[in-house]
Each structure stands twice: as C-alpha cells, then as structure tokens.
C-alpha cells in the first residue's frame, strides 16, 4: 500500500518578507481591507491565526441587512446597510440567496411602532412596503395567524464562509497573500512607528519577522490584545450574541419582528436550516462563548411569536459570536461621529502619536466593504498612494470554486443522480456529493475537515455529521491513502459538532447525539484517544 506525504501549507514564511500593508485578522473586515488594498495595487499580506471566518464573521446569523432594522434607532447605519446591500448583491452574488425579508407585528410587539418605523424607512430611503398579512401568510404558511401587520424589505441570506472564500480568491487573484494558521506574536516599534511584525506559523512553530509600512489591526474582539503588542490602548466592550439553528427550513423569507432592535428578533433561512438570532450579553473575553440554557430558551420563545409551530421542531445546534464595540468613555481621539456609525477606524498616529498602525473596530458584516474602503483610504493617505477604491464595481472572483445555495444544490444532485451512482451523495442532509468533496479536499486552503465543512456545509444539516463524518474520512483515505494529519481526523470533527449540539441537548436533539455516539463508539470503536498498539 502506498504511504504518506502530509499535505503542505499553501505558503511558507520566509524571514526576509516585507510588505506595504500587513493586515491582521481574517474576518470579513480584514479580508475586505486586503481585497480593497490589493485592487488599488498595494502589496498586501494578511495574517489569520486560525482559519477564515473563525471569529465574529463566521459566528453570524447569515442576514444581509436591508437597513430597515436600524431605520429608527440608527438612521446612518440604516442608510449604509441599504447602500451596501445593493452593492453586495451585485459583487458577491454567489454567496447571497435572495430570500427577501418581512417585518412582522405580533401581539407582543408595540402597536404604534410599525407606523413610526415605516415613516423612518421612507425618510431614509430604505425600501419597505406594507402588504396584507394574508398575503404574507400565502407566501409563508408557517407564519402565525395572530400577526397584525406585515412589511416587505430587501433582506437577503448571506453565507459568511462563502463570502470569506470569495474574498480570499479575489485577494489572491489581485496579487495579495493570505496566511492562515499564523499568529502575530509581536508588533515591533521603532520609537513612534510600528515597522514590523513577528509571526509564528502555528502548524510548524516556525517564527519570522516581516516588515510592513502600515499594519492594520482588524482582529475584531481581539483588537485590544493586538494593539497591546505595540503598547497601544483600545477601550472596547464585548457583547456575546447567541444563535440557534433549527433542524428544518419551514420558511424561505427572512423574518424580522417589527419592534426596536432586541433579543431574538430575527429568523434567517440558511441552507437547509433556519437560524434564530440573537441575544446580547456583556462578556470579558473573546473566547467567552459558553451558552446558557436561558439564552436558548429566550430565542425559541421569541421566535414562537412569529412561527407558532417552532416547538414541534428540533433545535439543531447553538453557537455564539462576540460583537466588539468601541467604548465611548475615555475615547482616545476617536470622534463621536464615527461611534454612531457602528464602526470606528482608529488612526493611532492621531490618537496615540504612533504611526504605521491603524485599528478597525466594530461594524456589521453587511457594511464590511464600506469599512474596508474607508480604512484603505486612510492607508493610502498615509502611504501617499493615490488610487481610488474599486470594490464597488469589481465582482468578487469565484475562482475555480463552486458555490451552492440550496436550490442549486438540489438541482445539481437531481440532474446528477440520473447518471452517477446514488452512493455519490456523501451528506444527504446538505446534498454534498463525492465530486464536490473531492474538489474541496484538493483545495490547499482546506487544512482540516472543519474547513471542508464550512466550504460545503458538510455535516451542518439535521444529522450533524452522524453519517458523513465516516464517509468523508473514508473518502479521504481512498483518494490519498496516506495517513492524513491529525487535523483531518474524524475526532476533532465529531467533537466540534457535539460542542454545538450541547446547548440544545434535549428531546430529539439529544437522541440524535446519542445515536451518533452509539454509531461511532459501539459500532466503530472510536475512543477519545487514538489507539496506540
């Protein structure tokens, strides 16, 4: 039998590297900045400590805002969302499903709010149109019969993992470089200027120093820690938002409660599931992601006002993301105007007298492009590089990657099944085929099964990898019969699924968890530790 060659990482660090712009953080913000800067002809390197979308961007509900949510509370954010919604629909089409959205008044929502909200939408140019409740219920029969009013808005469902993939492709085709699983361990200051960064390859332990003319700190909830590496302070508060996915997709439109922004006010159809969002709890640490039972209970109870049959459905899993918010008190030179906009670009040259570093904090996934544009404008100003932003009209590149929303996937499998072996469907829940999986395994960025899961939605459906973990692992051995690195192992994949199922571990979900446990442990003999003869 042939034996191993471990898969190589896509890039190898060298000590002599230097760049014009070095971006720390591979969330939507960092990737957006890297893309924008690459398009403007700057030399760009992005460093991400784990994988793309592992922080706040990936721990997201999937809603591309129409802006209507903020029409009353924050008109500027609302207008920005509305503009960016239109731009993203054209430049990032492969990762967006045009579900449309409803705002719905339930008996639990304030009676006078809808009129106030509708006039705010009109005032700020955010499309919103009232429709008879019966008409909304014709489109979405699962809606509560007790709704009093319904409005149609331009919401859409956006897969942030697919967005990250599109951004990486586009950064690379524009000449930028993305290093995954690399951590910035130091920011080197030469008096009042950050001149270089120290980087460690977390897979090999290799360390290198890289010169940079401008460092952009786009590390979301880790921004304070990153800034500290250069002895800079960023006052931030962190808010944990919990989301719950249900094991079916009873609706195909995004549903918003027509009330002021609050806990549990949206339901988003994503792939084969719906996502209930969100709560907001202050936390101390970016890794503080533990979900309390009351948070899950609250999300289910709130969603029930819109979808009364929700209790009959099975909760699939829950996760939490951390919203980084710039603290308004002891603001170091940031201006209050930018605070209202939900994101802040801190020019440390102005605020701390330290040049060569810019921090970007806060913001919404919907407005990531605009934040990137503003940040790169500042970078260009500092570098005296006079190039206009191109991201408004440049389509994100799919590369040789395929993107599937549910309808496309179903189409593909139904046309394929006439020709191919039926056993070619690896994950029945998400309709992932053998061919797609082989393609994904070939992608050098997919360094572990978890990356492949995000890429294909493998194991994200109702059985939570109960069947496809074995199939993927088996297929991996078939196409490269060498011992795969531990990260490809079936254990971390199963553990990760289990972690997300635990907060909803009761009733049928717990039965599903027990079922997988029985299969993998009693039938397949898997144990915590790998067997050593």
């Amino acid at each position, binding site marked *: 039998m042939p034996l191993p060659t471990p898969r190589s990482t896509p890039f190898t660090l060298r000590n002599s590297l230097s760049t014009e712009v070095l971006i720390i953080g591979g969330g939507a913000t960092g990737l957006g900045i890297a893309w924008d800067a690459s398009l403007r002809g700057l030399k760009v390197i992005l460093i991400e400590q784990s994988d793309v979308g592992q922080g706040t961007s990936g721990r997201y509900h999937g809603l591309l805002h129409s802006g209507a949510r903020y029409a009353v509370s924050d008109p500027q954010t609302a207008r920005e969302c509305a503009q960016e919604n239109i731009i993203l629909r054209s430049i990032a089409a492969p990762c967006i499903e045009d579900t449309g959205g409803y705002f719905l008044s339930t008996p639990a929502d304030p009676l006078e709010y809808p009129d106030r909200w509708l006039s705010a939408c009109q005032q700020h140019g955010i499309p919103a149109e009232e429709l008879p409740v019966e008409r909304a219920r014709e489109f979405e029969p699962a809606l509560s019969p007790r709704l009093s009013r319904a409005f149609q808005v331009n919401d859409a469902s956006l897969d942030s993992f697919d967005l990250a993939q599109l951004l990486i492709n586009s950064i690379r085709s524009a000449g930028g470089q993305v290093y995954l699983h690399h951590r910035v361990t130091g920011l080197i200051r030469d008096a009042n200027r950050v001149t270089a960064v120290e980087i460690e390859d977390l897979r090999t332990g290799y360390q290198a120093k890289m010169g940079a003319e401008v460092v952009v700190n786009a590390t979301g909830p880790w921004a304070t820690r990153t800034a500290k590496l250069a002895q800079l302070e960023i006052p931030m508060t962190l808010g944990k938002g919990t989301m719950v996915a249900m094991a079916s997709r009873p609706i195909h439109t995004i549903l918003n409660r027509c009330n002021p922004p609050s806990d549990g006010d949206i339901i988003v159809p994503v792939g084969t599931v719906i996502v209930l969002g969100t709560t907001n709890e202050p936390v101390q640490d970016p890794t503080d992601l533990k979900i309390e039972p009351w948070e899950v209970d609250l999300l*289910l109870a709130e969603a029930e006002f819109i979808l009364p049959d929700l209790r009959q459905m099975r909760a699939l899993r829950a996760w939490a993301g951390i919203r980084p918010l710039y603290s308004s008190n002891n603001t170091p030179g940031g201006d209050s105007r930018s605070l209202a906009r939900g994101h802040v670009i801190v020019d440390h040259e102005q605020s701390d007298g330290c040049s060569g570093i810019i921090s970007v904090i806060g913001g919404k996934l919907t407005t990531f492009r605009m934040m990137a544009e503003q940040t790169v404008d500042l970078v260009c100003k500092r570098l005296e590089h006079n190039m206009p932003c191109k991201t408004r009209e440049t389509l994100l590149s799919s590369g040789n990657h395929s993107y599937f929303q549910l309808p496309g996937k179903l189409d593909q499998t139904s046309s394929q099944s006439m020709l191919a072996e039926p056993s070619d469907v690896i994950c029945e829940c998400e309709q992932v085929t053998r061919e797609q999986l082989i393609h994904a395994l070939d992608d050098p960025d997919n360094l572990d099964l978890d990356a492949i899961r995000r890429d294909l939605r493998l194991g994200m459906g109702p059985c939570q990898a109960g*069947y496809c973990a*074995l199939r993927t692992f*088996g297929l991996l051995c078939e196409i490269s*019969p060498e011992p795969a690195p531990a990260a490809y192992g079936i254990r971390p994949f199963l553990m990760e699924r289990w972690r997300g199922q635990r907060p909803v571990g009761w009733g049928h979900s*717990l039965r599903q968890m027990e079922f997988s446990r029985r299969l993998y442990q009693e*039938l397949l003999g898997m144990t915590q530790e790998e067997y050593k003869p």
Partner: protein
Amino acid sequence: MHIAVVGAGLSGLFASILAARRGAHVTLVAEGHGGLILSHGGIEIWASSSPSRALPRLRPTNPYKLVGLPALRAALDEFRSLLDPHGYIFTGSLSGNLTVLTATGEFRKMCFAPNGAATVDQLREKPFSVGAIAGLRDYYPTLIAHRASAHGLNIQGLVELPMIDRPTQREIYALDVARLFDRETWRHELLRTWKPKLSGVTRLLLPACLGLNYPIQVREDFFQELGCLAFEVPLFPPSVPGLRIEQILKALILELEITYVEGCHASGRIDGSSRGKRVAGLALMTSGGMRQLDADAVILASGGVLHGGIETLQDHSIREPIFQLPIAHPEDRSLWTSESPFDQQPYSQVGVRVNEDMRPLDSRGRVMFENLFAAGGILSGSDRTHEGSRQGIDLATAYRAVEAATEMPLAAAETKRSRG
C-alpha cells in the same frame, strides 16, 4: 399468568422468550424497531477489565451489582442456548475481553463475539486481505486497511470484488447484500464471479453481509467454493449481525406463540382495584384506536434516551412517559452532557431506579408497584456505551426481571380475585 413486555430491543425480546419458556402467556408490544438494528452482534459485558473480577466491585446503583454475577451467568447461558441451535455461536468468556476490528480499523472490546467476527486474535495469526465490494454504502476498505495496519495488523492488500444484480436507482447496503447471499442461486453465481479475484487469498476481511437468515450456509458455501476464511466487520445501521440475532429471537417468539404487537404505543398504565399497589395493565395507542391490555405483570423494556423510554425535555425535566416513574437527574440541562462525546455522559446514566428484583423504586427507595419490572436501557446507573456493558446489562436485567415476575403466582391469583 399473563405478562406484558414493552419494547422489542434485546432485553424486551429476551424477556418475552424467557417468560414464555417459563410457562407465562406473553404479549410483547413495541412502537417500532428495537435497538438490535444498531448492534454489532457481540456481547459487551464490561470492556475495561475482566467482568468476573470487576462486577462485584461496582457501585451499588449499577444494574450488574443489583442483578449479581450468578444471574448474569444464567442469563448468558440461556441466551446462548437459544442462539446455538441456529448456528449463531459465541466465543469468549467472562474472564476477559476479546478485541474486535471495526469498520474504521479501530477496535472494540467485548466478552463474546459471534463466529465470523473479526477478532484481533484470529487476525493476528496470519496476514489477511481486505475485500472491497463495489458500490457498497458506508464501507471504506482503504480506511480499514490503513488504520488496521497502523495498529499492527498484517494486511496483504485490497481485493476488488464485483457485485451482481444490485438494486438499481438506489444505494446498496450491507443488508441488501446479506439478503442476496441468502438466495442460493445468487450466492453460487456471485462466488463464481469472485473466485478468480480471490485466488491465493485464504483469509479475507469483509463487511458483515454474508447472509441474514442463513449465515451458516453462506459461510459454508463461501469456504467450500473459495477456500477462503471470511471475517466480518459490522457497518452502519441497518447492522447485519444485530439483525441476525433479531431474526432468530423473532422466530422463537413465533414458535413460543407470544403475541407480538408491532406499531403500537404504550401510552399509560391501567390501575386495578388495588390502586397504587399493582398495575392492572397498559393503555395502548394502536392504529385501530386505544386498547386496554390486561396483565398480571408488566416488564418495561422501552429503552433509554435514544429509544424514547426516557424523555428529556427543554424545561430541564426528564421523565418516563408510560408509568411516570420518578427519574433522578442533574437539575440543569446543561449538565446532562459532557464536554466530549467520548466521555461518560450524565444523561446516559439517568433512568429508572430499581431494586434487586428489577422493581422500580420511588424517590424514597420504596417499591412502586408489586408487579411492574424494568429491564435494559431504561435502567439508571450505567453509561453502557462508555462502560462497554450494553448487551450484558440487557440480558442480565431481563433475566432477573422475568425470574422475579414469574416468581409471583400468588399475587397473580390475587389480582384475578380482586377483579372477579
């Protein structure tokens, strides 16, 4: 004496047969398919060490401790004596564990493995090949070969084996192949096709698919025609070895004239005149409507969390839905599971608490109903996946429950009197 048994998993089927063999009239009611469909076909008793030494030292709440080693031995003897005549023969003993190769090339420990199972002792004797059956679902021979050789087994190589007459327009599962193997003409034709591929191969690892109802004949023909010894690894459900046991037990159920009612949901208990002390029977939801099933004794073998014998709810409560038996459990539902799926799980140890006679106890440790008994997965006190104790507990507790239930002829007479 009429005994009603709820549940058609290993413990329910076994309890029904035992009771019938002891002269009781038995009605077995089951909502769906029992847990044998998930079984590897072996008997796990205590995976981490020798059961005969470990069991006496268990905590008093563990079902084995309540049942005792003699009852376990008696249960195993009777179980094996039921399967033996059908050619389902176990090897192994209570003094230690066998190591059996699985479909991921990992190992599972069990006290008794059926003939034809891929025990590591046998596999170590000489090199063997791995059969790759074309198009078979959930079977990855490369994975098995790779992991098993990493674990020190000597593998000669893979042998591609074609499939004939496979069902069209859908996947082919091990159960399909097993059913095809049961057909004599198909079997001979397939073995003729395989013969040239297996020249020089004397030991072959295959997915468990060599016959469902006639595995003995299939194995014989296999050896006769190919001169090759086959070792089987069970695949994902429907798991053929578990179903072989189920087929044999169901045949015995017919033979013993046990009334077997499938597709009916036991929804509650019927109280008799001695209300609160004894159970008069079961309320059943059948496709024909609600029915009452009178019984002198009820054996509850409705399973644990997976099979619905124990229900876990969002409001942090855990209940036994038929008799509303009290269930002690961690109060906060976030404490029901452990951080890793490979750890011991608190929810799995939750269940009905019983005494030495398998009679359910109330929260103060008193017998709830004189003629109600519980067996199998519904019992508290053990995480059977983690312990590697599933079948041993199923068999021993079913045995003990039947012993106790059939030991109460006087009580049965009393019931009849009170009804008259």
